[in-house]
Structure formats: structure tokens, C-alpha cells
């Protein structure tokens, strides 16, 4: 039996993280969370999570950044909004999950070759480049980055899709691609200017 000491000192808290979560979009009412557990009860994926949504809310507002950003839970969330519509305090839990995902990706709190952040990155690059997503190429690129072996495992599925003509390989794109780049650039400069 391995002994594990789990006292948390106030120095273990990250006040910046606690401040950030209660001031980011959707987190305005996180201090009001009663810890009632209705979000976890409604969440279809809470049964697999290491920290249920309720626990994540409390850990986040107290500033336990390590635990929150390295949890499995934030990647399991499918953003189905079941938690948010039930919450008796109107806390936008789904949006906070998005914010935590974004921060975890930015600060690289995930195992290498973990498919979800890889997908987020590949998706974003494809969108910025072409304005639209070509599903087939997106999936290929994700598997190339994550696990070649898995890709071969999906070959049966691939053949099924090819046969039913649902797999298209022609690159989808919009006409005015420069508009996408301009939009992204405008947002980037605005964020800097508004210190967001």
C-alpha cells in the first residue's frame, strides 16, 4: 500500500487562476456555486471523469490550477449543455469548460499526441487556411499526428465510408480566403489593444 500525503497549503493555490476563472466570460457567478451536484448528475460523461464538473468548479474558483488543467474531465466534456440548463445558480459551466480547454491547450497541459488538442489545432489551421473543413483530410492529419496504428485500425470504417460515397477528398475552400486571415488578424490586434 502506497502512502500518499494530501494536505493542501494556501501556497498551493494559484490566485491568478482563481481570479481568471471568476472574471472570464461565463464565470461571473462561479462564486455562487452551492456545490449541489446537479451538473454532475445531469452530465452524461460524469461517470468517466476524475473530477466531476461540480468538483472542477470548486477547485477552479479556489485556484487549484494544477489539478484542474491536468484533469481528464475537461477533455471528456462534449459540450452538450445538460449541466448549464440545470444549474440553479445560472453558472455557464459549458463555457467554463471551453475556457479551461483553451487554457490547457495554450499552456500545454496534456499528454503528447493526445487527439483532442491535436484536433483543435489541425481544425483551426485548416479553417484559417481554406475557410472550410474537409472532413477526410482533417481526420487523416489528426491520426498522422497522433497514432498511425490507430489509423490502420480505422481502415475498415474507411472502406465502409468510401463504398457509401461519403468520403470526399476534394479540398473545400471559400473564394475570399483573405477575409478569414483579415478577421483573425483584426481579432488578434484588438485583443492586444483591449488587454484580453
Amino acid at each position, binding site marked *: 500500500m502506497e502512502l500518499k500525503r494530501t494536505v493542501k497549503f494556501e501556497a498551493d493555490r494559484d490566485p491568478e487562476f482563481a481570479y481568471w476563472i471568476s472574471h472570464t466570460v461565463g464565470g461571473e457567478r462561479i462564486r455562487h456555486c452551492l*456545490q449541489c451536484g446537479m451538473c454532475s448528475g445531469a*452530465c452524461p460523461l460524469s461517470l468517466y471523469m476524475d473530477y466531476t464538473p461540480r468538483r472542477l468548479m470548486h477547485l477552479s474558483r479556489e485556484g487549484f490550477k494544477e489539478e484542474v488543467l491536468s484533469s481528464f474531465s475537461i477533455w471528456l466534456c462534449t459540450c452538450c449543455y445538460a449541466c448549464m440548463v*440545470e444549474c440553479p445558480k*445560472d453558472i455557464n459551466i459549458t463555457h467554463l469548460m471551453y475556457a479551461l480547454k483553451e487554457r490547457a491547450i495554450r499552456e500545454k497541459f496534456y499528454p503528447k499526441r493526445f487527439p483532442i488538442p491535436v484536433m483543435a489545432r489541425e481544425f483551426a489551421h485548416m479553417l484559417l487556411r481554406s475557410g472550410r473543413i474537409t472532413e477526410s483530410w482533417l481526420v487523416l492529419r489528426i491520426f498522422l499526428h497522433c497514432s498511425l496504428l490507430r489509423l490502420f485500425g480505422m481502415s475498415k470504417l474507411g472502406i465502409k465510408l468510401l463504398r457509401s460515397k461519403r468520403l470526399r477528398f476534394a479540398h473545400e475552400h471559400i473564394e475570399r480566403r483573405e477575409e478569414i486571415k483579415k478577421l483573425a488578424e483584426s481579432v488578434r490586434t484588438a485583443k492586444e489593444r483591449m488587454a484580453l
Partner: protein
Amino acid sequence: MPEQVTTSENSVRDPARIGVYVCHCGNNIAATIAVDEVAQYAAGLNKVVVSREYKYMCSEPGQAMIEQDIRDHGLNRIVVASCSPLLHERTFREVLSRSNLNSFYFQMVNIREHASWIHDNRAAATEKAKDLVRAAVRRVALHRPLEPRRVPIDPAVLIVGGGIAGIHAALTIANAGKQVYLVEREPTIGGHMAKFDKTFPTLDCAACILTPKMTSVGAHPNIKLWTYSEVMKVDGYVGNYKVTIRRNPRYIIEDLCIGCQECITACVYKAGKVDDEFNLGLSKRKPIYLAFPQAVPQKVVIDPENCIEFKSHRCKKTCVEACAERGAIDLNQKEEIKEITVGTVILSTGFKTFDPRRRPNYGYGRFQNVYTSLEVERLINASGPTGGDVILRDGTRPQSIGIIHCVGSRDHNTNRWCSKVCCMYSLKLAHLLKEHTGAEIYNFYIDMRTPGKNYEDFYDRMLDEGVHFVRGRVAEVSDWAAHPSEKGKLIIRAEDTLAAFVRRIPVDMVVLSVGMEPKEDAHDVRRMFNVSCSSDGWLTERHPKLAPVNTLTDGIFICGACQGPKDIPETVAQAGAAAAEALSLISAGCIDLEPYTAKVMEEVCCGCKTCIPMCPYDAISVDEAKQKACVNEVLCKGCGTCAAACPSGSIEQNFFEDEEIFEEIAGVLTHA
């Protein structure tokens, strides 16, 4: 402390000699406003003879200071700049009357709630205080002497609502020898408490402790009990309320009915046909019925919506036959309108339970074995639809029961408040259901709220009895099985927050602990009696701590659950308090009303009658002989509507005369 003697001025009224007093109110005002500066400034104002500042003007030394100055300096007007008039206007007016000055030669300036408590900027707040004081000084110079109106208090009391609150208040007042009119909408008194099985924390049988009081009410010589009746109109003012009450027809002559119930047995319907309201629809009753066995008054009622005779006029009328000897059934009975005069009114209209259909994820109405707590009270009650046997709608007996706390409460989507009693009654139901069925009981709660006397011991007792407590608000009640053991059951899905994982618990019966809400017609009631209620619908007390049963309307008191969610001990305490308030007024025999009434200057009035329909209190009438408007000072409440509406400006209101108001405005806007 600076003083200044003013030069006399040409003024229409007595030359004013004003004393200004600026209060520190400890730190409440002094921390934000430079009170010495304000007092010094006031000293330089026209007609101000004395100007002082002091730590606590409302204290005895503070008041004595004013009295001394009135004697020494011949002051005849006083301005006190301190807190809200609601708190101490009366105090300072009494100071004036003790010094033989008319108490309305006084003006109070609120530099606390209106200045120091709402601003951070010291310089700006001090300037504002000076502006307000200047305005008051200019106004007070024009004050006229006024006398409060003294009105007698009629010793009769009207109590609206015959639940435990109304019953207790009625008995208290009746025992004091005063006449009580108790008006109740339902055919019987008793309210919600009559439906309960046992009450927490003593597990007293609700009916056993309630019915003796109900019988006392029915038999008391000083209580006129009008059930199946509703208040229609209220006119008048404290001490003299004229109330119109409609007595709905029972189609039974009350004085003749002895409650033998032969008519019910004889009814052409052999079995019940209509949802029994007392049993919350769990059983059926006949169109002719008695609400419940211990109903007071023990008089039968006929429901015209469901009685064949009223719908088709083709009934054999076996009920009339059964009562041939006494002849108590009168199918032609009409509603009766009663008009009474009372001095005070107590509102004890009660509450309603949250409709669980507003929370569809709990399955009420979709799954037949989901019940509300009130329905379960009837189910476990020996006089209920199943005689106390817990038999579900599908005929089975439950072996596992889930009790869900906080249904409708503590939720931004439905009701924000905590309903105070649900944790306790959920524990009570857990105990009673376990006793009746031996089932596995699960209570799902967010916080366990047991604040009253012996309540925590009651919780301990339930912990002893092996009830499962799962801390987690239930997300859904569904009937689809994710595991073979769940087949055919209702599944409760919740996170067990203390264990930190999700649990699925299959049960046979789900009990929803529904919260308390104001009655649907709360806003109509408050309009009729001219009291206020919050946006939620709870009737508003005058002060949450110091005046919980008074309202802002003199002579009208509130008690019980209509004021907010509460349990029976608190309800009875409030009912006693309201009775005491009413008796206190009755004992005094009269009350002084503020003299802020309107008066018509006959020489200016042109008889256009614009003011007559404006008055919300019907206090203005036309003097036919003179063709002039005439205000009944006794009915007038001083709202000012007529004074504002009069096209010829011939109506003036005491204490709010045009000149006084213009001086005040000028004082605020112009720097001296």
C-alpha cells in the same frame, strides 16, 4: 458652537426663529460628511438663530439640547439633519410638543440614507448635505401649525384566512372579549395543516392538535365564522374599515344542517366522481360532500359544477329527500353579500406548494409513482384515500423510496428562496414512510437545514434509523434502465457529492419535497387591502426584524406563511403577535393619524369635478348646494393626487402646500 441672531424679515407667517441640528450619528454620517462644516454653514442662513452639531441627536441629551435652546433662544422652528424620518421624525416631533411648540413646526433632513451612506466623496457629500439643509431651512419657515387627527378604533377584527395562523389569532382576540369575523375561502377552516399526518419535530398528529382549536373557533361566541366566503372590497381607514364579503352559496342552509351526512350517502352517485381536493386528487368525492371528517363547520357543501341537478335539472334529488325532515338543502340558495365594519384586519391567507410540473425532469405527471410531499401526507394519513396504507397509483407497495429535497426552491430557474420547512418535513416523511412500509429510504439533499428547537435531534434520530442520505441535487428521474437491476423502477440520477461519484438509484416511489410559494392571487389580495408585497408575491412586513407582523398600512397586520415560508411554531408565534398588535390598538381605543389631508379653497374652486374620480379613496364629493368640491378629512389619506390634478389649483394639502414645496426646491437649487 456658533450662533447667530437673525434680523427679522417681512414674512406672511410668524417671524421664524430656526434651530438647526446636524447629527454625527456616531460614524454613520460623520465619517463621510464634515458635520461641523454643515452646522457652520447653516448658522449663516437666513432666520437661523442656533446651529449645532452633536454625536447622537436622538439620544436624551440630544433631545434635551433642543428643548434647552427652545427655552433660551425662543426658537419656533426646528430642523434636524440626521437619519431617515421613518426612524426618528416622531421622536423629534415629540420634543417640540413637550416644549409647547406645534410638532409640525419641524422638518427632518435625511443626510444619512440620502447622503453619507450612498456617497464616497467627502467633499461632494458635504456639499449635498448643505444643499439639503438649506432647502429644509427655507421650507420650515413656512410651516403652519397642524393637529393630528384622532380617530376611534372599532373593536371588531376581521381575519382573512382560516388556517392555523388565522385560527390562533381569532382565538386570542376572541378570548380577549372582542368580536372576530373569520373569513375563509374553502368550505372548512384548517388550511394546509389539516392535510398533514404528523408534524415535526414532535411527531404530533396534526389533526389531533388542530381540531380542538378548530372546534373552539366554531363554538366561540365571539367568533363569526364565515367559510366558503371571500372578501370583495375594502374601504375606509384604520379603526374604521368597511369590508364587503361575499358568502358563496353552499346550497345548504347552515343553521339547519347538523352534519349527519345522510344526504351524501343518498346521492345518486354511488361512488365518488370528482377529484377530491382535500386528498389532492388521490381519491374521488361526490358532488355533495364534506371536505374531511373533522371539518369545521360540520356543514355539507354542494359543488354546482359537478352536480347533475345544476347541469341538467334532471336529478332525482335523493339528497333533498334524505333531508326532508330538517329541510336543510336549498338548491335555489343565492350568494349573500355581507357588509361589516372592523377596526383592524389580520391577513393570514397562507401559501401554496410549488407545482412540480415546472421541473419536468423529475417526471411528475409522466411517471405515476412520482408524488408530491403533500400527496404523501394524505397517503400515510389514516383518514386519507388509502387509510394510511402506502399503496401506489399502480397498486403496488414500494420497497424503495427516494425523497428529493429542494424541488422548486434555491433555483434561479424557478424560486430563488429556500422554503425553510422542506428539509424537516422530508426527514419526517422519511421516518413515517419507513414506519409504514419498511422500505429503503434515500433522501437527496443539498444542505440539511434544521435550525429550530429540537430539529437537529430529529435529524440525529433519522440518522439512527438507517435512512440513506445522499448529498446531491437530483438531476433527473427516468424510467430507462442502464443495468438489469434497474428494470421496471424509477431511476434517480445524482452525484453523491460527498463520495464524489455519480450514483444511479432505482426506487419504486419518488417523493418530491416541493417548496412553498405565495398564493396565485397574492397581488390581488395586496391591492384590495392596500398593503405591499414583493415581486415574488410574499406580503411585505413593515420591518423584517422589528415589525414582522405590521404592514406599512396602519391597522392591517399579516401573519403566517403569506409573509414568507415558515413552519408551524413560527406561524403560531406570528399569529399571536398580530393579535397582540390588533388588541393593542383596540385597547388604546383611538389612534392619531398624520394630518396630511387635502383641503379645498372654496373661493377658488370652480366646481369642475375633475378631482372627484381621481381620488383612489373616494374621499372627495360635491357639495351640491355650493357646487364646490369637499374633502372628507377622515377618509383622505393624503396621497396628493387631487392637489396635483386640480386645474384651478384650489386644493392644497397640509404640510405639502405649494409655497412650502417651491421653497424647498428653491433651497436645493440656489446657493445662499
